[in-house]
């Protein structure tokens, strides 16, 4: 079965604060409900929209990244998709068996052992005992909990919990995979395995919904993305544009908290060797990073920096005007700075550009406010290569072989 997800105009409201009613409140609340039947589309006192009119679709082999600040409604959206919550409005349809990991820890029973929880989770996913048994070793191997298999889950570390939860969700042949923040726990090796696993499922045609604050991972894994804020879809589209938009929103809110930001980044663009805007480069090609700025007052010799990180946060390269001995003089109004790269000597993969504007004096000095503006992971781009190089750097290379003939006597 090929899974799919369709969400149309979904809204969900919550009440603020804790409300464990006691029987004492029952009669007044009934009276209130009878007296004033509030329509479902309006908010009552203490209510707020956790999701408001959210729509999207994920088809076979597609992956959507859901990004946004904390409290944007990301987890609520996933809980609606997994039928834990029912929306007040709108329609949604998820076809197929859902493998899901919500809020990191799966729904484990703390007193049961890892082994027992695997079977319990399998049953919750609607699998037969034999189907779970067939996949059991694979789950244990993936989660790496072999020796703790018969330990109650309450003694697991949070990393072990997440690993086991992910292993179960991603191994028990889901038709749809919904993963919330699995990358915030677990070590680098596990994160890489998670990403590889999700890519593999996606390649098999499993639609994927991926919530994460790890934007490089989102851009690496997803084809499109949804930017949520305050329960609303602020932006949706290609993953690169959505992340850029999010970066701008974040930097805008950062700048508001920095009243002394006399100069700020207003945009980052990448161009290919032909001067045409590009997101995809072949390894070793020419590239230009354009950093647009706006200064509210004349700034003496600001320093510009461009960093490149690989999707898994490996720091690939850092370039700055001050390290290059480049002095810009007094800068005011609007303008842009171009960084021309002769050879983008990176191996194939997904990368991100971060840009910063620093003060001329006090750069790197301890305690000094060295920074005017910083946009991290603002611009994703992809490097393609037909050479099978691994790692980060693509070193121009060739092989020579000098065979030393054995002297036969």
């Amino acid at each position: 079965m090929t899974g799919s997800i369709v969400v149309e105009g979904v809204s969900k409201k919550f009440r603020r604060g804790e409300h464990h009613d006691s029987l004492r409140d029952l009669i007044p609340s009934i009276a209130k409900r009878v007296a004033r039947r509030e329509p479902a589309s309006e908010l009552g006192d203490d209510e707020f929209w956790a999701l408001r009119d959210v729509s999207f679709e994920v088809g076979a082999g597609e992956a959507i990244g859901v990004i946004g600040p904390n409290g944007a409604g990301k987890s609520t959206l996933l809980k609606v998709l997994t039928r834990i919550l029912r929306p007040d409005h709108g329609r949604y349809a998820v076809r197929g068996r859902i493998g899901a990991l919500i809020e990191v820890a799966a729904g484990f029973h703390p007193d049961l052992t890892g082994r027992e929880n695997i079977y319990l989770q399998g049953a919750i996913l609607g699998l037969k005992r034999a189907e779970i048994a067939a996949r059991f070793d694979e789950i244990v191997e993936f989660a790496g909990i072999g020796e703790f298999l018969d330990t109650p889950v309450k003694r697991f570390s949070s990393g072990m919990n997440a690993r086991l939860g992910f292993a179960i969700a991603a191994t028990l042949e889901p038709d749809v995979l919904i993963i919330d923040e699995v990358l915030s726990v677990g070590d680098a090796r596990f994160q890489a395995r998670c990403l590889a696993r999700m890519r593999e499922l996606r390649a098999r045609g499993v639609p994927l919904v991926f919530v994460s604050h790890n934007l490089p991972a989102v851009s690496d894994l997803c084809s499109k993305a949804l930017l949520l804020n305050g329960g609303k879809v602020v932006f949706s589209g290609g993953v690169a544009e959505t992340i850029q938009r999010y970066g701008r929103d974040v930097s805008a809110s950062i700048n508001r908290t920095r009243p002394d930001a006399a100069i700020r980044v207003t945009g980052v663009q990448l161009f290919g060797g032909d001067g045409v805007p590009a997101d995809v480069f072949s390894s070793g090609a020419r590239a230009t990073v354009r950093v647009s700025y706006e200064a509210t007052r004349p700034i003496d010799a600001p320093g510009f920096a461009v960093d490149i990180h690989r999707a898994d946060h490996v720091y690939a390269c850092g370039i700055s005007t001050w390290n290059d001995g480049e002095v810009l003089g007094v800068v005011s109004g609007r303008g842009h700075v171009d960084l021309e790269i002769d050879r983008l000597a990176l191996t194939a993969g997904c990368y991100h550009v971060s840009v910063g504007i620093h003060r001329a004096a006090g750069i790197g000095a301890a305690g000094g406010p060295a920074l005017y503006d910083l946009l991290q992971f603002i611009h994703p781009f992809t490097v393609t290569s037909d050479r099978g190089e691994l790692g980060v750097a693509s070193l121009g290379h060739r092989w020579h072989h000098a065979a030393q003939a054995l002297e036969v006597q």
Partner: protein
Amino acid sequence: MNTPLHPSLMRVARDIREIVAEQVAYRELLARMTHRDLLLRYKQTIMGVGWAVLMPVVNTIVFSVIFMRVAPLDTGMPYPLYAYSGLLAWNFFASSLRFAVTSLTANATLVTKVYFPREIFPLSAVTVTLVDSIVGSVVLAGLMIHYRVAVTPAIAMLPLVVLAETAFTCAMALALAMANLFYRDVKYLFEIVMTVWMFATSVVYPVDLVGSRWGLVLRLNPMVGIIEAFRSVVLRGQVPDATQFAMAAVVSFAALAAAWVTFHRLECRFAESV
């Protein structure tokens, strides 16, 4: 002429279809959840299933002292047999509900993190207690041998009696688990109600002795008919009183249908209320 069904009836029909479809889809889960609860019981208590036997045995001894020495009572059979059979059947009902009432709130992590039919929790509480009661019935068999009570063909009706009691127990379990999720004081009220209910049912004495004034109220209580039917088929070797048992069975199944449909409709609000 084809009269279209009333919309609310259509809705009930749809609810029932959904309930059945879900139970079929998740049939493995009930077994697994019951297994889990049994497993935890054995792991965390030394006595394990011994508790299921101990409770009715101790109660039987206490009530035997009261109603054989202090205030002798004619129950038409050796009193310990009367009391133990009543307590065994009653404890299945009462202990199931005691587990069920907190079953949703105690499993908040599962309720808020994974979807599956929520009735699994109260229903597995009932199933676990049913297993306990089957163990407890060994003592009843022992008492029957001791008092030389023979089993007659009437025992063939036992499954029907157990079915009716299970239906009623499930109905109450669903209703209480749901009520306690929305109103947390239900579990305190529950204990008081159960104490009164036990003495309004022929558990340790024939309830007719209370007086005919309460006749109607007592007849609406399906536990009276069920426990009497249990004693009839197992101990007296008689077919149960048809009207009394039929009424108890009808009330039980009607209650189950009503509780289950209500549960199904409110289920979607559990995760945000738990």
